């Protein structure tokens, strides 16, 4: 078990170092003279990664599928623009955005997470619709015409913030998954009744995780609000973003830290190609890719790769039966 713990610790250490190095490199891009095309591509990669990891923290680890992460990000975007327009400082505004999304998640979390996964999924769909309806009706939210950020921030600011959120969320999933609490969450995903028989308060775990996950989604949306600077409710609260938030981790490997990274890279690549070739079909094609991944790799690309490499590992260490006999 010492070995096992050593292996776990090594994975966390090397994984964290890799994440920090990537985060630093990507955050430095605005000063490294890369083209704005590359910088924008990296920004969107980080945006979808942050959103995907937020979804992953809840749905990937518990198996309770959320369709609300786009809407939660939208709440963050609206909150940050309203707060900044009220002359609040950036840090406070981002905090308000995260809290707003967290609070919104509690409404569905507390009411539906006692129940089965399908009730939760329907509740998240309901939230998505409810928020769109509210934002279009509420006077201070600008109605169907949306709202505009009054102050213009330098482009590097949302870039650096988004990379930091994406890197931080990935780090959080990496470390949490291998923590004792993370282990108990994975046990719960496998069998909730058996988990409660070993003292796990499943409802509480799910509510807390969903709230944390929503806060990250809200923060992600907030940073994107600063980036986009004008918000239209039909865009911000379209179901598309919620679908991307779940497609990214599912393609790459839900419940793993690496999965959403792969998923985000693949999705951003696909999106670039399809925006030229078939802009209207892009979510349909993402759906097809997702189906293919599920069909051929079951649980996403990262776990499939893991199995492949572990197999090679074993072959390297343990002699095959034929060799033993010879």
């Amino acid at each position, binding site marked *: *078990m*010492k070995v*096992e*713990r050593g292996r776990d610790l090594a994975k966390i250490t090397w994984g964290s170092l890799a994440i920090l190095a990537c985060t630093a490199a990507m955050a430095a891009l605005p000063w490294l003279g890369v083209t704005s095309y590359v910088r924008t591509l990296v920004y969107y990669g980080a945006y979808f990664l942050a959103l995907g990891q937020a979804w992953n923290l809840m749905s990937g680890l518990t198996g309770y599928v959320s369709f609300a992460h786009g809407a939660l990000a939208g709440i963050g975007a609206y909150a940050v623009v309203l707060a900044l327009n009220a002359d609040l400082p950036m840090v406070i505004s981002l905090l308000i955005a995260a809290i707003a999304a967290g609070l919104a998640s509690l409404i569905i979390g507390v009411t539906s997470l006692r129940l089965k996964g399908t009730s939760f999924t329907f509740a998240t769909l309901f939230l998505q619709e409810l928020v769109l309806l509210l934002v279009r009706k509420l006077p201070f939210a600008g109605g169907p015409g949306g709202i505009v950020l009054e102050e213009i921030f330098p482009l590097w600011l949302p870039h650096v913030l988004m990379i930091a959120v994406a890197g931080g969320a990935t780090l959080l999933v990496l470390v949490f998954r291998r923590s*004792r*609490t993370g*282990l*108990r969450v*994975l*046990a719960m*995903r*496998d*069998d909730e*009744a*058996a*988990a*409660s*028989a*070993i*003292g*796990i*308060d*499943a409802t509480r775990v799910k509510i807390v995780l969903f709230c944390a996950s929503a806060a990250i989604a809200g923060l992600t949306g907030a940073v994107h609000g600063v980036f986009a600077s004008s918000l239209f409710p039909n865009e911000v609260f379209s179901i598309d973003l919620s679908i991307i938030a779940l497609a990214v981790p599912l393609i790459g490997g839900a419940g793993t830290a690496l999965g959403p990274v792969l998923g985000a890279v693949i999705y951003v690549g696909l999106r670039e190609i399809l925006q030229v070739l078939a802009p209207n079909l892009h979510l349909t094609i993402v759906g097809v890719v997702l189906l293919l991944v599920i069909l051929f790799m079951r649980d996403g690309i990262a776990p499939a790769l893991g199995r492949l490499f572990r197999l090679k590992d074993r072959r390297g260490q343990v002699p095959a039966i034929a060799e033993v006999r010879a």
Partner: protein
Amino acid sequence: MSGILTVVDAHKRFGGIHAVRGVSLALNSGELLGLFGPNGAGKTTLFNMIAGLYPPTSGRIELASRDVTREPAFRRARAGIGRTFQVCRPFRGLTVAENVLAAIPPGSGVGDDRARAREILDAVGLLPKAEDAAGSLTLGMLKRLEVARALALEPKLLLLDEPLAGLTASETSDLLGFIQGLKARASIILVDHNVRQSLGVCDRAIVMDAGAVIASGSPDTIRRDPGVRRAYLGESAA
């Protein structure tokens, strides 16, 4: 001897099915109680009510004089009830060691929890399988993993639901010996549908049929009970 568990007139109905009909029992600490009865007698349902998987339709359940009738399963587990499932329910995505580690209360001890998990696995003979996926175990191993996971809670009361079913003869005698050794640590209720194989290790036993207790007392009393003899020990009504 102090009472660890008291069940008072517990009933359970599933729609039209009256699965448990007024069962009462008391368990003293350090006692091994056998719970016997044919399939469908209501043994598992009684366990589920004691462990809190669902509440009784009526009746009361007390753990060490505390009324836990309405408490959820996780709270009863924390209060000291460990249970196994008749149909094994391992966490299939975790390794064998992780299954046990997950059940050790977080932040409870000063010691090394991973070492503790290994100790428990060693005790049930699963240490060589520690790093294997739980989903890959044979039935005999899964039954032992169920016991190991329940033991990780350091329960005061251990509910074992047919841990011997489906095991080979040697596995059965090993596990039975092991269970007997656990009496020093916990009070135990052992469910078996085979009276003969485990009555010998019990301090006391209860026999259920069709949701009700039809006999209870010392192993000798149970052996002599005419109803039990008819139903289980293969004797004709004499």
